[in-house]
């Protein structure tokens, strides 16, 4: 029945989610300004469904307790633009590095590559910033990212890196054709961008590892390698899409292949790391995440093979570049989705921590909390 608003005072307060009448009550509390869409449907489905498993005693008796299978940690709220940023930002960082190196080693012969890398650093950073801003809950406040410098926060570090690479690459790109003092300033900026580009290319791996998401946490040693390699491959693939000088193309190809090899090796390491806890690695073994992960790997291998074969046909190079881009993108999305799946599964967290891979891993103490007489700690030491 659609009779809600017919007689009540709801018309006076339409869209006021607290159901408080401003004629009678003042809304000035801490969360009084928390906004809720007028149509609740815009928030999407409720974050939980009816608990349809019987709570009968036999079923609850299992030792592997959870709270109605609800997630213990919150799933990351990031949208698709974030893995896309991993790609763009990584490519920008890697390009800045490659550009700076090319500039230092053989500026005269690799001029187009240097300039291209400068632009790629600048555009990648700008695009990346745009992608990040579009993910923000309050995009108009994006400048707050530079409000403080928090060394504890990879995102804060990354924001400064991104801003730095963006600004320096941008400056160096604009000044690429200048001579004299300006030209030298451009060169200096490019070196700076290259220096900052080194961490920028892979810091996002640290960023996602510094979360409570079990799979990301478990993969924290190998993920930077994967991300760095992927960034190199991404940058190389993108650079390979447009014609360069032969030597430049060869440099890019070699750079990309190293990245692809590193990322493939890193993927193996990631699989090993997350599979230490059966439940943490589960999404990589079956389901959509595993499919994407394996497809990305296949694309990566194909791209690598195409790049590695002798001969320099343009179509093949383009195919390798496209495959490499797809592989890099797929990998980022696979890692991203792996984290989300892992966050949804409370047992991933519980098993990880029960196995001594929670705080115990770094503090060295058996901090697992349990009631007296509970077998939890014994189980921990046995498993861990």
């Amino acid at each position: 029945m659609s009779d809600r608003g017919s007689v009540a005072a709801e018309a006076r307060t339409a869209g006021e989610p607290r159901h408080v009448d401003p004629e009678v009550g003042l809304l000035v509390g801490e969360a009084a300004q928390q906004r809720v869409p007028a149509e609740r449907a815009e928030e999407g489905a409720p974050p939980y469904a009816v608990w349809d498993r019987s709570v009968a005693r036999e079923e609850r008796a299992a030792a592997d307790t959870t709270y109605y299978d609800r997630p213990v940690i919150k799933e990351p709220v990031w949208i698709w633009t974030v893995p896309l940023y991993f790609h763009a930002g990584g490519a920008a960082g890697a390009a800045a590095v490659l550009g700076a190196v090319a500039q230092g080693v053989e500026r005269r012969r690799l001029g187009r590559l240097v300039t291209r890398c400068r632009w790629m650093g600048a555009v990648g950073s700008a695009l990346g910033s745009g992608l990040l801003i579009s993910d923000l809950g309050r995009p108009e406040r994006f400048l707050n990212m530079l409000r403080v410098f928090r060394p504890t926060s990879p995102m804060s570090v990354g924001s400064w890196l991104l801003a730095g690479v963006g600004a320096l690459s941008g400056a160096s790109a604009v000044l690429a054709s200048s001579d004299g003092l300006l030209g030298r300033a451009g060169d200096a900026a490019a070196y700076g961008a290259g220096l900052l580009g080194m961490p920028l290319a892979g810091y996002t791996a640290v960023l996602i590892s510094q979360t409570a998401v079990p799979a990301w946490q478990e993969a924290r040693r190998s993920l930077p390698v994967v991300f760095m390699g992927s960034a190199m491959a991404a940058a190389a693939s993108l650079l390979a899409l447009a014609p360069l000088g032969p030597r430049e193309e060869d440099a890019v190809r070699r750079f990309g292949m190293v990245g692809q090899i590193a990322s493939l090796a890193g993927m193996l390491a990631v699989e090993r790391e997350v599979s230490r806890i059966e439940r943490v690695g589960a999404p990589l073994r079956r389901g959509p995440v595993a499919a994407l992960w394996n497809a990305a790997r296949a694309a990566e291998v194909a791209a690598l093979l195409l790049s590695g074969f002798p001969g320099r046909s343009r179509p093949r190079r383009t195919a390798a570049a496209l495959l490499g881009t797809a592989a890099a993108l797929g990998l980022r999305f696979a890692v991203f989705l792996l984290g989300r799946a892992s966050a949804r599964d409370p047992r991933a967290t519980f098993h990880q921590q029960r196995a001594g891979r929670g705080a115990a891993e770094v503090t060295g103490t058996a901090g697992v909390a349990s009631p007296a007489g509970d077998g939890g700690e014994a189980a921990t030491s046995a498993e861990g």
Partner: protein
Amino acid sequence: MIQGSNMAECHPVGFRWVMEAKNRGATIVHVDPRFTRTSAVADIHVPIRAGSDIAFLGGIVNYIITHERYFRDYVVHYTNAAAIVSPDFQDTEDLDGLFSGYNPETRHYDMRSWEYEGQQRSPVVETHQEYHELTGEPWSEGPPQARAEHYDETLQHPRCVFQIVKRHFSRYTPEVVEQICGVPRDLFLKVAQTLCDNSGRERTSAFCYAVGWTQHTVGVQYIRTAAIVQMLLGNMGRPGGGILALRGHTSIQGSTDIPTLYDLLPGYLPMAKGQYDADFGQYAFHNTGRAGTWSSFPAYAVSLLKAWYGDAARADNDWAFHYLPHITGNHSHLMTVAAMADGRVRGYFVMGENPVVGTVHSALHSKGLRALEWLVVRDFAPTETVEFWRTGPEIARGEVRPEEIKTEVFFFPAAAPTEKDGSFTNTQRLLQWHHKAIEPPGDCRSELHFMYHLGRRLKRLYAGSADPKDRPILDLVWDYPTIGAIAEPDAEAVLREINGYTVADGKLLSRYQELNDDGSTACGCWIYCGCYAGGVNRPARRRPRTEQTWVAPEWAWAWPSNIRLMYNRASADPGGRPWSERKKYVWWDAEGGRWTGYDHPDIVEAKPPSYRPGPDAEGMDLLSGTDPFSLHADGKAWMFAPAGLVDGPLPTHYEPQESVIRSPLYGQQCNPARLEWDRPDNPYHRAYNDPRFPYVLTTYRLTEHHTAGGMTRWLSWLSELQPEMFCEVSPELAREKGLRNGGWATITTARGEIEVRVLVTDRIPPLRLEGRTVHQIGLPYHWGSRGLVRGEAANALLPFVADPNVSIMESKALTGNIEPGRRGRGRRVVTSGPIVPPLDHDGAPRDLRPPASGAGSGKRPRER
């Protein structure tokens, strides 16, 4: 001991003090069919079949007596255990479930055989009228006697109350308790033992109950059984003891003190009875106790009439007694609604209540509302009651169209408590003033405003009338000053009238003992006299708890006389010394020559423990210095009630109106005096073993909502906590019937059918009774068709059937059926035709009554 109440859920802040007691070492026992949030923190949870509490408590009585655990000094001196009862009295043990005096024709008891030996009439005020109504005999004897003539303080006389109680309850052995209640023997014994171990001189135990006890066809007797336990253990009138009624509404106590009830005038003065109270003399004669507080009845009544009719109430016109309407039987809510459904009521006021959801048998209520000429509802938002013509289930199904309903409906928006001054009386008799914070918005007004201005309009409409029936309106004292632009009557002026004043100079009275029967005082409610003593609004007192004793006498004001613990004389031994240092509360100060203590003593302050009434003593002087229970004419607590109850002087286990088992005790299955409404739109199930309705249903509240939901279902902060109507069933029943957790189920009785969500839980355990499994279904009842959250009203399932003493419905134990899935638009109510076909063979009758033996009639009772 918490029984008949889910205190943690329904009175969480009251439960604070239970948890405090637990923290200090008290044992908390919760007896309840369900494992609730109260059970979860209790030391002992006893699952009991809904509707079998008398058997459980009777078992405790039996345990106390057979193990000689009773507090002998207390029992002998402060209760009527030693009184000798009439030789005509016959017990349920003798008459297969009936007491002597039952008349199966009228279904009423003649109570004369229950009285004390040698006594012509019982002394209690409230029931004289009932007595006359029930016996049909006019009152001709002299004033009621004060006390039993004979006592046997050795408690050995076979007809002394103690021996009668002992015999009566001897049947309730642990085995019988297990059989009737489904409570394992060991668990029962543990409870009985715990209770006895925590009672006596050094310790006290308290009972808390709520509507889990009252909403039965033997509800009053549930409480009586607990009272007998507490009397035997010496737990009444002592700190940490008592039987605490946990009342569900903020001023529900106040609304019985100043009653919006049909049978009472303010201060528990009975309404005039048409058959007997021809004039004030008769009225006073019938209601004045010979001893105790009620001996001053004429003073209370005259002062009330003076407060209402002012100068028009004079000695020479019987204090305008003839202005009062008379009652001629039961005019309680269910009676009224039944009359309404039959078209005999034309206009209906409903203020701050939602009976379509909150009481029983919604469909019959709706039928009644459809038959009205006009309906006035005052509330915050339109409830199911005021929208019955628009959103009721009959309308939604298309069985009734709004165009066909003739009722004219007014909805008046009510002012919130924060928008008006006034006092609430809480569950412990404390009057607390709340102050107005802001002006009411729009046309929202207080009930004070509504009533005052309605009264002024009616006075205007009747102005100049010479009809004698209109005199009460014209002479009504109705001159309260008003405040502000909206002309809100001054609530303090009303409270001053309630407090009482001297007619001559308007001086505020300070205690009810100052009231006179000569017209010199006026008082709106004698028990509230003193609440405005000295011109101070005492309910508004707010001395912080940290700045006074734990009794906190300077926080608000308690009736009567600011006594926080009634009958507290019993906290001292007969000699006036505290029973123990640990449980010291009120005691006799021999040097000062007066009672003193932490609280205001509930006894004439200068009456020494040694006082014994002389032969000429009258009124309060007839009570000795060892009589704590001053509202009773003999000053004793009554284990055996020689009067006051219409369904027996002692509690006896009867099955609910609709039960799953045949009563194991007697041929008499149900309370023989219960109120039934025998009409086609109120069908009952079989008394037991109805194959159509094999499960026990019980209804209850949740913390997150308030009764019928009018104050909670519209609030998002509460609605999100319990957003939908559901039932609670055991995993065993869920498996048996294929019910899915979170899925839908349809629950059916002969009255109606509702669809609800399912919550499968171990907290509603099946019971083993008579060697078979009996499933229970729990139903919270807060939801309806209006508000932010919806659900069907559980009370649509309940029949009209009630306790005979107080006309309270039975909602806590009945039978019904459950099936998985929704019923969609096929849902029906009995007012639109039968829901279930009647049984074609008479396997078990609707009711069973024993062949008449001592009851005085050879006729077999009606069987349905």
